[in-house]
């Protein structure tokens, strides 16, 4: 297994310290609460979806650096994107951190989110990275809650 330290790169540390899109959208069209019972991580997502686009997205919550940085980078990555593309990104991200992608699979949608690929070597932390995406998926499906249990 790789050194856990490799995961804690500057971008992740920086997003943990200063998360982007942190807050709550008062007039949202979609929302969901994410919960990771193992760690106690909690995440609340609010979105404005219009014309098939994620017009705006914000999150609040508390959790570890992997969770917070993942939420921060996710909100930045999906904002302004078509809903279908956001869902595809969620799919690719989950595959990547769970180590389920075939070797050599390209993940063009993910861009700098590939920073999290090292999580697959830390099974105990996979749920932390996935929680924001699972919550996004729930919100877009119209479900109120997501759990990585």
């Amino acid at each position: 297994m790789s050194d856990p330290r490799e995961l804690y790169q500057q971008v992740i540390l920086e997003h943990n310290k200063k998360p982007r899109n942190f807050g709550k959208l008062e007039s949202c069209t979609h929302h969901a609460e994410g919960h990771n019972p193992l760690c106690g991580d909690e995440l609340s997502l609010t979105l404005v979806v219009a014309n098939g686009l994620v017009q705006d997205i914000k999150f609040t919550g508390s959790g570890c650096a992997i969770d917070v940085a993942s939420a921060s980078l996710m909100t930045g990555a999906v904002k302004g994107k078509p809903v279908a593309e956001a869902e595809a990104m969620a799919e690719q991200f989950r595959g990547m951190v769970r180590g389920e992608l075939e070797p050599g699979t390209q993940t063009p949608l993910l861009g700098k989110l590939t920073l999290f690929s090292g999580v697959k070597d830390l099974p105990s932390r996979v749920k932390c990275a996935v929680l924001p995406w699972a919550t996004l998926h729930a919100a877009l499906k119209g479900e109120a809650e997501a759990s990585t249990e």
Partner: protein
Amino acid sequence: MSTTPGADLQPLDVAVIRKDFSLLSRVLHGKPVIYLDSAVSGQMPIQVIERMAKYEREEHTNVHRGVSTLSQEATDFYEAAREKVRKFIGAGSIKEIVWTRGTTEAINLVAQTYGRVHVKEGDEILLSAMEHHANIVPWQMLAQEKGATIKVIPMTDAGELILEALDELLTERTKIVGVVHVSNVLGTVNPVKEIIARAHVKGIPVLVDGAQAVPHLQVNVQDLDADFYVFSGHKLSGPTGIGVLYGKLAHLEAMPPWHGGGNMIRSVSWERTTYMAAPGKFEAGTPPIAAAIGLGVAIDYITALSLDRIAAYEHELLLYATERLSRIPSLRILGNANEKASVISFVVEGIHPHDLGSLLDGDGVVVRAGHHCAQPVMTRFGVPATTRASFAYFNTREEVDILVSAVEKAIELFR
């Protein structure tokens, strides 16, 4: 903290002891393993592992079965281990020593037998604010079934139980008290003898969760006057899958059996079954024989080292680690009880315990990060989780130094 107990004793020869633990020479992420997680599970010395292997290799059969030499031999080893447990905790009779799978099963057994008989609608079960989930959930399940309520002995910010609250909390509705001897999160050694005495004044029995106590301090159940005392083998340098319920004989005799099956019966017909006397009636099915024998050897090992010497050595390590960690400005230790076992839970400002746990792991330092199966304790202190280092008799000051520098490195990274 109080003065070092047993300071006049010959110190432990830790360099020699460490040779009995192969795991301590493992390498993780290119670093030597620093095992500071004995509160999660203690390491077994090679003597325990080899004895269990010998049983499985050369002596394996079932106990209390038939007339074969092998079965008699296995029964003798297995029952000899029970006698070792009796002596270790100062019980009066081996009839009072019931084998269980562990602490959790032992508490469930008491809740489902003693508890179901005695707890009725409107009754109260009194627990302490620093219980492990194992000493909460079985009682909640019982309370829900019976329409009883759970009351809680509060604690101070230092992590000490507020005994002044006891008189009000022990009522004529209180049917049993459950209290942890040593907190797995805070390290607090609770004054269980006093709590038991005060409950007994009102005729209320007390169950003591001793899982984190027996590895660190000499326990005498008769001196404590505990009604029930429970612990696990694997925290005591023994294997998983074996634990102990001590119960006063009068209680065990009056309690109905729990699990039914072979081994716990005297005779079975289609009309009726009669049960063995305690402890047999609580031991249905084939037990973990090798594990029981292994726990007996673990007790021999601990006894040979002497719990007084272990306590003195661990106390010195605890003081050293507390002093070193306290010098880190952004670090806060949870639990500063006057009487404390070698467990340190802490939080570091700006670093989630899970991140810290992962980073320490990268430095070979094995600690527990999480809620420690004690979520009400986390809530009490307003934290989602903590990082916990727990020290055993094989740990060293050098390992404490490595922990401290690994924490400092993590803080530097997160700065």
